[in-house]
């Protein structure tokens, strides 16, 4: 079974803190994604990566950055957390090519106070 593991399920951070959300996949997938989920808005793509050290902005990249130094690991970074970044963050991965199933982690609930 494909496994996408997000390191923290629940985090509480203070405004202005630097926050790291870590994600690891065990299927040698080329593509990795970070989505944000908010009630009534569905899932919105923050960033994705199609190879090591390669990244592209999604629909809502402002306030976020990412890092992919190894194929299996994709990190989401909030340089200076703000309260409007309180949300559920979902990491996902897939093989290359259209139509491939995208597999999701269980999510990280981030509260910024």
């Amino acid at each position, binding site marked *: 079974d494909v496994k996408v593991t997000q390191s923290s399920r629940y985090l509480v951070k203070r405004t202005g803190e630097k926050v790291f959300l870590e994600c690891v996949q065990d299927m040698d997938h080329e*593509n990795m994604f970070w989505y944000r989920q908010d009630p009534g808005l569905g899932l919105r*793509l923050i960033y994705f990566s199609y190879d090591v050290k390669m990244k592209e902005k999604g629909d809502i990249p402002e306030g976020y950055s990412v890092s992919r130094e190894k194929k299996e690991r994709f990190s989401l970074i909030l340089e200076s957390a703000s309260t409007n970044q309180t949300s559920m963050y*979902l990491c996902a991965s897939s093989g290359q090519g259209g139509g491939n199933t*995208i597999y999701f982690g*269980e999510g990280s609930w981030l509260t910024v106070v």
Partner: protein
Amino acid sequence: AQSVTQLDSQVPVFEEAPVELRCNYSSSVSVYLFWYVQYPNQGLQLLLKYLSGSTLVKGINGFEAEFNKSQTSFHLRKPSVHISDTAEYFCAVSERGGATNKLIFGTGTLLAVQP
């Protein structure tokens, strides 16, 4: 660019009744279509997907969906629901032939099955 509309934010239904969750999409190019399910406090799990061929797609847990190109729809159906089907359901599209397979999601439909 693509977009996905899920017309119902919530669908209440009694156990053993049939259900249909509606999904319409907009795209200037051909797309692949997906339905995902999210149980409480969990990530998303693939229910089914349409890539090509037969427009009726069967998925896990007794769900099926029909692709209708003329109506740009991909509605999800189940003939008889169970309490355990209570979850949020997301319709999504990705660009056929695109360089990456990133998904564009709808806003979700909460299926609430009542005894």
